[in-house]
């Protein structure tokens, strides 16, 4: 059954084959992209305009955070598998993959918190350098978005455990997935421009 047919069956408002909900969700994600775009553009301009900048590979734990990047990518895989699960009516797969995604998200946050604590211990603060200010702002806002995502995943997981999603109706899982992948995409960009360049 096509998505349009399912939507019509449930009398959900649609436009151009998309439900209003999904359309609005994408607009929300687009606004979030603009939010990060502003921060990233500021970082690029500040860094390019600075006469000196610390050697990133010496200041930050690139190896550890590379592993963390891998963890977030795996969490995107588990999220998409959760969605694939409910698309075929596999409740167990939906449940397990949602919980796995939430767990991996929490691990990501834990490692980020560890990275922050190490940097603070070494004396890198947001107040005393542009490097610190941009680093903590960018990773901090991303971390907040991941935290929000983990909270969302807990809600979606609880609903899944109650049997709240079916093969015919699982919009919430799709939207949760879209948000989670967005958070992953932002990190892919941030990891590259902060840790590698």
């Amino acid at each position: 059954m096509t998505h349009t047919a399912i939507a019509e069956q449930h009398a959900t408002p649609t436009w151009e084959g998309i439900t209003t909900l999904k359309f609005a969700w994408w607009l929300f994600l687009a606004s979030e992209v603009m939010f990060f775009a502003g921060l990233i553009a500021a970082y690029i301009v500040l860094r390019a305009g600075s006469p000196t900048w610390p050697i990133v590979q010496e200041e930050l734990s690139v190896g550890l955070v590379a592993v963390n990047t891998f963890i977030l990518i795996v969490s995107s895989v588990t999220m998409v598998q959760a969605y694939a699960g409910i698309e075929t009516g596999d409740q167990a797969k939906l449940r397990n993959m949602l919980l796995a995604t939430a767990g991996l998200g929490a691990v990501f946050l834990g490692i980020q918190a560890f990275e922050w604590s190490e940097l603070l211990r070494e004396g890198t603060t947001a107040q005393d350098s542009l490097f610190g200010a941009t680093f903590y702002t960018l990773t901090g806002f991303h971390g907040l978005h991941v935290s929000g995502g983990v909270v969302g995943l807990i809600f979606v997981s609880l609903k899944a455990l109650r049997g709240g999603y079916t093969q015919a109706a699982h919009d919430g899982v799709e939207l949760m997935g879209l948000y989670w992948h967005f958070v992953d995409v932002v990190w892919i960009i941030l990891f590259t421009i902060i840790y590698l360049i």
Partner: protein
Amino acid sequence: MSTHSTQAQRPYMRVFAFLVLLTVVEVAVAFVLTASAAKVPLLIALAIAKAALVAMYYMHLRFEGRVLRAIAVFPFILSILVALPPAFDVLARR
């Protein structure tokens, strides 16, 4: 039923393999090409490739209509436009 779900999984796991590979290449480039002028454009290209893979396959954009794709792409174009004036400013001050 199981064949259907395995078939539905294939692009996801292949995309995952590419994402891991691209990440490994990125980290390698960062540590190996430290003095090279090609480093920054190459890393940006790799990051964009990874982001595009997640957007196209995990966020399903490859199979969605023009409207959603336009909504998804537009902020990136807008971001570049927004970042250009300060970029020119930085270049002019050098």
